[in-house]
């Protein structure tokens, strides 16, 4: 059977695992550092950029997507695609109808 696994299994080297780990640590430091520099609206996008870079590292190496069947990666990305549709349309609509919403309306909060 052992010959079988080699046929379809990728084994990540310890070196790779550690390098990725360092990358993630650095990314975390970078996110926090960046959040303390006031770049106005840019902040959120830079933050998301770094976070996505970190996520990509995890997915590609720790989750073996780099060596996995492309379709598995496709499935995972598809989830994000549909999530963006959901976020996009909903944000577009809510942003538009805010003008009708009574600011701070929340009678149930007792003032």
């Amino acid at each position, binding site marked *: *059977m*052992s010959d*079988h*696994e080699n*046929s*379809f*299994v990728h*084994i*990540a080297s*310890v070196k790779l*695992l*550690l390098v*990725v*780990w360092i990358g*993630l*640590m650095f990314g*975390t*430091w970078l*996110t*926090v*550092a960046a*959040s*303390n*520099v*006031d770049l106005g609206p840019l*902040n959120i996008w830079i*933050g*998301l950029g*770094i*976070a996505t870079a*970190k*996520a990509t590292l*995890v*997915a590609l*190496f*720790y*989750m073996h997507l780099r060596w*996995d*069947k492309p*379709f*598995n990666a496709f*499935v*995972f990305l*598809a*989830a*994000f695609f*549909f*999530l963006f549709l*959901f*976020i996009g349309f*909903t*944000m577009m609509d*809510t*942003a538009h109808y*805010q003008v009708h919403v009574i*600011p*701070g309306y*929340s009678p*149930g*909060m007792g003032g």
Partner: protein
Amino acid sequence: MAGHATTPQEGLRVDHHFENADQQYQSAKLGMWVFLATEILFFGGLFVAYAVYRSNHPEVFIFGHHFLDKNLGALNTIILICSSLTAAWAVRAAQLKQIGLLKLMLVLTMLCAFGFMGVKAVEYNAKWKHGLLWAGSYDPHLDHDEPITESTTDEELQVPGAEVEAEVASQAQRVGDADLVESEVVSESTVVDAPTDRSNIASAAEGPTGLAGAGEHGPDEHAIDIEPANAQTFFSIYFLMTGLHGIHVLGGIGAFLWLLWCAQRGDFATGHFTRVDMVALYWHVVDLIWIYLFLLLYLIE
């Protein structure tokens, strides 16, 4: 998840309806990826709520995030990243039938998970003390003797300056805060000790955090003093997102315990590592989601 029923006696057995181990492994794996996709969309709903409310009421989020502790958030991020490392390492160990190493990695991963929940407990407890809860129970009361455990160091240090113009209520919190710094440190270190081998790494990475944070907080002093309408929304979303994530962490702990038991039983002696692989995949997604939660909840400017 995986369609297996391996027991040591039979070795790596292929279920009756599969042709070979490859087909069986690939099926389990595709199944897991599809499941992870559903997880993304499951959490997705909360991200949509977050996006909608933050884009339409940024002031609420600017205000609310001051009550979260960046350092504890960063610490938890680091803890989870380390657990991802050990989880990935565990898979490697299982693939190479290094059962001893596998067990060690599983234990380390679990310790990280417990550490994470410990830190969360500290944060939740502080919110609870000050009524900084979801809308239904939102009732901020910032008594003099009790420090707001979570809005720490950098912000607090500025307090004396803000004191003058701050209104009495929000006043009180900061005044008390001076003494919180110690209590903070204590609670932290106790948590960090859990995964002993990396408590030092944690504090190391915290250095820059603290520094960077200290430099730049003046501007927000006012933001924190004036509570915008519907501030409760931030805390609702905070508890929903971190709560759902926490439940997934607990689920992960359960899964790792199960793996440990399987390893103990010798299931993995045959190089049959699918289960370890699947649980690790799940765990990495829990990590991925936190990477975003940390950014979106703790690091708002």
